[in-house]
């Protein structure tokens, strides 16, 4: 390995242009944990919850639901998970994260639709409004601005940003979740970052949220 000089900053992640081969950005489950959880092993469930509960919460919260609703949806996701595991419906060996976050995504979307039908005050910028209404949670202005910019992204762009940075999925897992090549996930992430950067540079002139699928 060549020595690191002042001109070569230490590199901890993948080199530019290389795919992200790391198994996961967040923690991984020990082998067989899912199998043990399927039969109701409390220790296995503690591991599953400890590894994923807050990541699922952050993912759901970033989709535009308030804190209370996000916790309810997270509960519902894990209850569904346990029921499907107990019924032997988990078939995607080695793709547990993709399966889990697909369930979470569907649940969050269903909840958002339900709230819209009931005319509850949840919309794509609720995430932004939460940041303004709860200053204790947005202690840094920078993060508050970032939340506002994410809320203004289109559905697809926001999803990939949230999956990557809030749910801590690897690009491989995101690609598996969306049934697309890893290269496509990388490119979509790159485009979403560019849009986010533009929104952050001109927050006042930023347009209203795009409905969905802006990165076709």
């Amino acid at each position, binding site marked *: 390995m060549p020595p690191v000089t002042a001109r070569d900053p230490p590199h901890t992640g993948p080199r530019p242009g290389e795919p992200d081969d790391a198994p996961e950005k967040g923690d991984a489950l020990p082998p*067989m944990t899912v199998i043990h959880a399927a039969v109701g092993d*409390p220790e296995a469930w503690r591991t599953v919850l400890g590894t994923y509960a807050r990541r699922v919460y952050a993912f759901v919260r970033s989709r535009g639901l308030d804190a209370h609703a996000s916790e309810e949806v997270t509960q519902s996701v894990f*209850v569904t998970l346990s029921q499907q595991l107990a019924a032997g419906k988990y078939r995607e060996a080695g793709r547990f994260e993709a399966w889990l976050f697909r369930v979470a995504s569907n649940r969050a979307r269903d909840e958002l639709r339900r709230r819209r039908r009931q005319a509850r005050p949840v919309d794509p910028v609720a995430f932004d409004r939460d940041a303004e209404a709860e200053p204790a949670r947005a202690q840094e202005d920078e993060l508050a601005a*970032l939340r506002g910019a994410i809320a203004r992204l289109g559905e697809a762009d926001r999803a990939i940003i949230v999956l990557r940075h809030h749910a801590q999925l690897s690009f491989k897992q995101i690609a598996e979740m969306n049934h697309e090549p890893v290269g496509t996930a990388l490119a979509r992430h790159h485009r979403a*970052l560019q849009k986010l950067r533009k929104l952050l540079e001109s927050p006042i002139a930023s347009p209203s949220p795009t409905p969905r699928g802006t990165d076709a």
Partner: protein
Amino acid sequence: MNEQTPHNPTDPLEHRLDALGASLRDEPDGMFEQRLARALAKAEPAPGRWSIHHWLAMPAVRLAASVALVSAVGAGAWWGLNTRHAADPAALTLAALTEDIDHWLDMDLSLSSPFSTDLGALDAEARALDVFASDELAWWSDDWLTPEAARHGETG
């Protein structure tokens, strides 16, 4: 930032996004996991409820099941062949051929035995062997010799 780089770990924006993600993950209180565990305990099926899917999901069980299946098929095939042979020896070509060879060997041994004194039986067997040999020769002539060689054999 290099615009051609889809994922740049040194990008400040990505660091800020990671920080925001961390703050969201820290948002629930310390009882969050326990509340989830209680909700699961209410909805979860009773522990120890195994199904065939759970067993088959385990690699060791899958391997053992495969070995058992192959063994069962092999044993069944062996049993079937033996049963068929016992019921109808002629049905199994290899077994029938083996019996024929045994029979011929017995004949040969009886002919070549220096202790045989039954001249009538020897004569009969010699005649039978003669017929057999001529049949064999005809077979060879028909199937293996060229027409020219067969003619040469007739004239010679």
